[in-house]
């Protein structure tokens, strides 16, 4: 339970899966965040993603050995930043409708792969929050070991369906 020691669940500063579905527009198979175990508005968030063999991407990545695609680790970190950004803008209330935010840029190093059975701990700190976007420093950990580390930029965009 190394992760539980690193990120104790903080009552009042957690979000369950249903809360996340209110904030994020993503749905199966691309909702990559199961729970938020801690956050502080405008500062940091700690999310959790349990990797399971039933996830659809393991059909092809790879047929002979199941490895979580690195882009999906990035996606999980980006969704964590998205949630933190939303919480930091909205005050105490959850947003009425998910905002669309797009990954503008990524700089990420991968140290080791994630496989079924791993529990990803997704830690993101806000570097800069502006009206049109947010920059975050991100790290994904498994059992206390960094597996990916980098920086992400998300941009708020108009919903293309309204254009």
């Amino acid at each position: 339970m190394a992760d539980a020691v690193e990120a104790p669940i903080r009552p009042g500063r957690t979000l369950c899966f249903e809360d996340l579905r209110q904030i994020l527009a993503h749905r199966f198979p691309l909702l990559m965040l199961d729970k938020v175990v801690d956050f502080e508005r405008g500062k940091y968030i700690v999310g959790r993603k349990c990797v399971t063999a039933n996830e659809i991407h393991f059909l092809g990545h790879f047929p002979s050995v199941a490895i979580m695609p690195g882009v999906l680790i990035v996606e999980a970190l980006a969704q964590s930043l998205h949630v933190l950004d939303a919480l930091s803008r909205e005050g105490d209330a959850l947003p009425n409708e998910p905002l669309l935010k797009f990954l503008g840029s990524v700089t990420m190093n991968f140290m080791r792969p994630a496989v079924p059975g791993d529990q990803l701990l997704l830690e993101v700190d806000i570097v800069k929050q502006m009206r049109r976007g947010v920059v975050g420093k991100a790290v994904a950990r498994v059992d206390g070991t960094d597996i990916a580390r980098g920086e992400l930029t998300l941009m708020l965009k108009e919903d293309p369906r309204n254009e």
Partner: protein
Amino acid sequence: MVSEVEVKNLLKNEIANKMDLLADNIDENAHLADLGIDSLQALQLLVVLERSFGIALNDDDLQYFRDIKTLGHMVASRIQEAAAGGVH
């Protein structure tokens, strides 16, 4: 103390790297949009400026992201204010 020329050189080098241009060919009066800088790249440039010079910039400062000359002048002023212990 960092000079305005040094700030402008950093901006030219950053923009050159981002947009695959030659720093020496960048006109400091050219509009950043004409150099290909969009809102995403402006945000990244802003973070680079904060980290490089230890200043804090905000949404209102995006109005200075017109050209390198204007931006360099604003950043150099903020560096001076910060060094003098002023609020920025």
